[in-house]
């Protein structure tokens, strides 16, 4: 059933310029162009790229193969984390997200009864503590990694946070 891949089209008379086609295909794949057509006298070769639907947006850091062979359409999984990931996309509005480097409990103030580190509207500097995330009784002070204005605080005081969860939206200084 498999055709063994052996070329066996000998007795055909004038052989097809398959090596040329192969090179064109390679060229197409490497170049990323949409179509290549060659005509020379009687001979004409056309090589076209596959039409993609919309580009697939891969949120994960895993490399997407150059030629994805299985195309599943992009459907938003209705789960909080995914929605958050989209919400904090720095894309259009130029906001920067400060994310939690640890799993734990989010506190806005250094200790109960004290005032919060920052409020919406405050201007902060890179390195300035924004909050605490407590994990196993360890108080991790979370610094801002940019200077700018605190636009949004994304987690409620004493709420749980995951690794890499956005905590603050900061509009970086121009």
């Amino acid at each position, binding site marked *: *059933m*498999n055709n063994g891949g052996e070329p066996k089209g000998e007795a055909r008379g004038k052989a097809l310029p398959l090596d040329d086609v192969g090179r064109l295909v390679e060229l197409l794949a490497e170049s990323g162009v949409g179509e290549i057509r060659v005509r020379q006298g009687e001979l004409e070769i056309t090589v076209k790229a596959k039409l993609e639907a919309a580009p697939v947006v891969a*949120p*994960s*850091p*895993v490399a997407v*193969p150059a030629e*994805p*062979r*299985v195309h*599943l359409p992009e459907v938003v999984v209705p789960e909080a*984390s995914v929605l958050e990931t989209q919400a904090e996309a720095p894309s259009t509005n130029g906001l920067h997200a400060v994310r939690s480097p*640890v*799993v*734990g*409990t989010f506190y806005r103030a250094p200790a109960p009864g004290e005032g919060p580190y920052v409020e919406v509207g405050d201007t902060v500097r890179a390195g300035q503590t924004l909050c605490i995330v407590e*994990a*196993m009784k*360890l108080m991790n002070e979370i610094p801002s990694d940019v200077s700018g204005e605190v636009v949004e605080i994304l987690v409620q005081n004493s709420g*749980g946070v*995951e*690794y*890499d*969860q956005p905590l603050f939206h900061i509009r970086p200084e121009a």
Partner: protein
Amino acid sequence: MLNKVLVANRGEIALRVIRACRELGIRSVAVYSTADADSLHRLLADEAICIGPAHPSGSYLNIPAIISAAELRGADAIHPGYGFLAENARFAEICEACNIKFVGPRSETIALMGDKVSARRAAAAAGVPVTPGSDGPCRSAAEVKRVGAEVGYPLLIKASAGGGGKGMRVVHSEGEVDAAYASASREAGAAFGDGSVYAERYLEKLRHVEVQVLADERGVTAAFPERDCSVQRRYQKLLEESPAPGLPEGAREGMKKAAASLVETLGYWGAGTVEFVYSGGEFYFIEMNTRLQVEHPVTEAVASVDLVAEQLRVASGEGLSVKGEVPARGHAIEFRINAEDPRRGFLPQTGPVEFYNPPGGPGVRVDSHLYAGYKVSPYYDSLLAKLIVHAEMREAALRRGARALDEFALTGLDTTLPLHLAILEDEDFRRGGVFTDFLEGRELTGDGAGLPRLAAVGRSPA
């Protein structure tokens, strides 16, 4: 019964625990690394929490992150699966300190059995035969030579904290001891942070046979039909079966009794496995794994028991649902489908699974976290799926295995599927009772009849 269990693992074993939790009405919490955001264990658990980056040291081995996640989600127990933190005594201790039930034995038991020298002593104390060798660690090459003079050569030098063949050396005569001692100790120190080694008689033509045990906190114990795990590659098991083919009844009984005796002596609880080598009609204790094994499903098949459910029952303080020597019904075989290309030196394979259609039908079980489109990442181990077949007789199980492997459609990555088909065609293997060197130097290639056909399905017009 427990209320909520955090599963401190990933891949197929995380799924296995999540499934057991769901069947027992226990809520499950999956933890996952950023590389596992699209993994089935995250999707199938009742809750999920991201605990760190892709590299295991920051996520699945990150004790503070896992404990913190358990506290945040109010989990009353943590199931460690196998690998990662499953035999980390400190992790178990921290769980105990944080009032989170560790699904496994006490931390002291883990520590005791985690050190090969103390485990050997404990076994000997329970009347379990151990390989002739040193009583404790050998602190010098001279001590190794003393053992050699006593038990004879060849001798095996092994890391006390060892596993997976690291820090291991075979010594054929006294003249080789100095160099072997030095290199084994150095390797052990590098691999385990503990350079101590011990020496024992090196056995050849051996089979790896192990006994699954269960015990609850009330002292009820159960020993299951033995598993034969002799088909290995570089100390990594590839195929396991139960019962062990062609083993004399006396050896079978002896191992089960020895395992039960060790469990009782230790005051063990939870699931565990006592591993033996079987050589020349005798069996000797190697080590005890104080956790669930990858190959536990072969025992589940022949003993009609749900080992993970039993673990959770024990951790809940409930009693075992089985006890004593549990009889075998039929024969079961597990095939580990790894993302490794057996034709190119078992080169690890990564990337997306393109087409995935596991086999079905009678007597076939598949435990896997795969789906079409899932990306196999380079960060974690290469196990993609376990295929377990069960039939009334070994011969029927072999044929069922070939049938199921043959229709296991998995494209996008090279796997050990063709190797397993070749093993099933090997005459020595079919006869049963091969030694652990079975795969060495053997040209095992095979494609099966259906594999290429089904791969083609994955590429046919949708």
